[in-house]
């Protein structure tokens, strides 16, 4: 049960513009299956930068990144896109739903892209997740017709649709009021406990972080405790 989902080995990164500025220093840690981890630290400490490196979207780093035991470093754009599609679910600070589509379609899109199940199965699965998150009545609304808190739950449902190995969140509660933050946190908590879902959430909300099982604290591009 204690298999390693994500492993960072000696990851360093520098911004080159306008001058060479190191942002991540030799970061190494691993995340095991079912862990609910938060990354905290002050603004500019590099926690978001680290998350995007771990998410495979940012490929400009040194060191090695393993997801599910597979080396990610040096893979092609296409291969990485496939891994993001299959193994990683994202929840961002700004909800980033596609306004052209309905809520249901937004949730279904990554699964349609993966093309592992039929459209009918995907629809059923998406509806199930929406029910689990208590927003099934929004399914046929347009994405821009639902509120911020609801959008974030839709985004969580979308992150879950392909049964990802890990869900990554970049300040998922950063743009929400207290009540909605609570709902989102409880949702994560529920996923962790009921579904043994692995979660890695970047946040500067210490209340949020203190409730998670594990906290990785960063300062000036270094992990100071984990």
């Amino acid at each position: 049960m204690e298999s390693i989902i994500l492993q960072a080995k000696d990851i360093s990164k520098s911004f080159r513009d306008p001058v060479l500025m190191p942002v991540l220093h030799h970061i190494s840690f691993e995340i095991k299956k079912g862990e609910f981890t938060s990354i905290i630290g002050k603004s500019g400490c590099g926690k978001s930068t680290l998350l995007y490196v771990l998410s495979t979207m940012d490929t400009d780093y040194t060191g090695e990144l393993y997801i599910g035991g597979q080396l990610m470093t040096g893979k092609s754009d296409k291969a990485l896109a496939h891994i993001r599609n299959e193994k990683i679910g994202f929840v961002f600070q700004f909800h980033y739903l596609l306004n052209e589509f309905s809520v249901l379609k937004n949730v279904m899109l990554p699964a349609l892209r993966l093309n592992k199940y039929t459209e009918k199965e995907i629809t059923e699965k998406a509806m199930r997740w929406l029910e689990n998150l208590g927003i099934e009545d929004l399914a046929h609304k347009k994405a821009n017709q639902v509120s911020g808190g609801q959008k974030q739950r839709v985004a969580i449902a979308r992150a879950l649709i392909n049964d990802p190995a890990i869900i990554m969140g970049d300040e998922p509660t950063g743009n929400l009021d207290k009540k909605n933050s609570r709902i989102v946190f409880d949702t994560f908590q529920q996923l962790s406990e009921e579904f043994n879902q692995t979660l890695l959430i970047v946040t500067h909300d210490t209340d949020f972080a203190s409730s998670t099982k594990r906290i990785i604290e960063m300062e000036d591009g270094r992990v100071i405790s984990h």
Partner: protein
Amino acid sequence: MKTRLLIEITLSLLSARMRQTVVAAVGVTFGITMFITLLSFMNGLNNLLDGLITNRTPHIRIFRDIAPAKNQPVNLSETYGNTYNFIQSVRASNGRQEVYNANKIISLLREDNRVLGVSEKVATQVFFNTGTLDITGFMNGIDIEAEMKFYRFSDYVTAGNPMDLKYTRNSIILGKPLADKLLAKIGDVVQVTTAQGERFPLKVVGYYQSGLSDFDKTQSFANVATVQTILGKPASYITDIEVKLRDINTAPLLSKEFARQFDTDTEDIQTANAQFETGTSVRNIISYAVGITLLIVAGFGIYNILNMMIFEKMDTIAILKATGFAGADVKKIFMLISLGIGIAGCIAGLLLGNILSHIIDHLPFETAALPTVKTFPVDFNPLYYIIAVAFSLITTYFAGWFPARKASRVDPVVIIRGK
């Protein structure tokens, strides 16, 4: 499934910016419409003008030219034939104007399966007498049935029945302007004097109008036998043999072959009317250039709108990439958008182009020079439609390619973190 998903996303993006999409498609529609209309109309005119010449010009004309003998007698002599002879003041000899062995040549040509039709002709200069005036003109003795069959003679007879040339003895069809000069109405008798001074009365049975006014001012037509009688020549006297070929493009080659075979002079249609081909090709180049310019301008319209769409849809592109769509998928989506606009605009353009061509085809166009033409000529050649489709697809492909490549290179991290 995969393709269906891409198409679904494409349609959603398109419908989200419906107005811009329509504007871009209208650009293509306009380009295609004008391209098709322009080419159809221009080529219709070209064919009409070329037809003025090619319809009634034989592909090969066999005749005897007035020219000095190619082999002067001294070169034929046994004594001096092998020496180099300088001959001064060479003149064309007083040779006969008829084609030698005309009947034999005609029967040989009729057996040749490269030849569609053969007709004989007797051409001569005459004077038309009106009051005290003599008007110079030409009289063509023709085989009226062959002329009607191969050279659309009846298209140019604006009054009277051309077959009357055959059925009425000593009859004549006058060029319309010539008839006007002679004040000759149909049924009147005109006096014709030959170069030898013989005078004949001939009955006018029709007017001829070719569209070339200068030509019509001097021309008249009668039966071959009538002209032979006027000239006092036997039935074997033929000045021209006109050949219509199955394939007009073989004319220059066959022309040379016939000249050699029958030991006479020949002229092919391409040599006789080189200027028409030049005019046609220049007009073609101009209309293609204008049409293609229109399509390229439409391509720029698509390019602009796609670029704008990419700026507006940065978030969408970023989220698609974050959730597992590769750069290549994003590129495909934007290529589909471009081609979708192109194809929709193209189909509308084909329809509108066809409708506009039909409208032009029905506009009245009457001119004294072209008696048989009542409306503007339009050439409904499917080739123009095929070219238009090919060009619109090529331009929209390239108009889409650059923005699509840009979209595929959008870095999702920059967009997502940039908020």
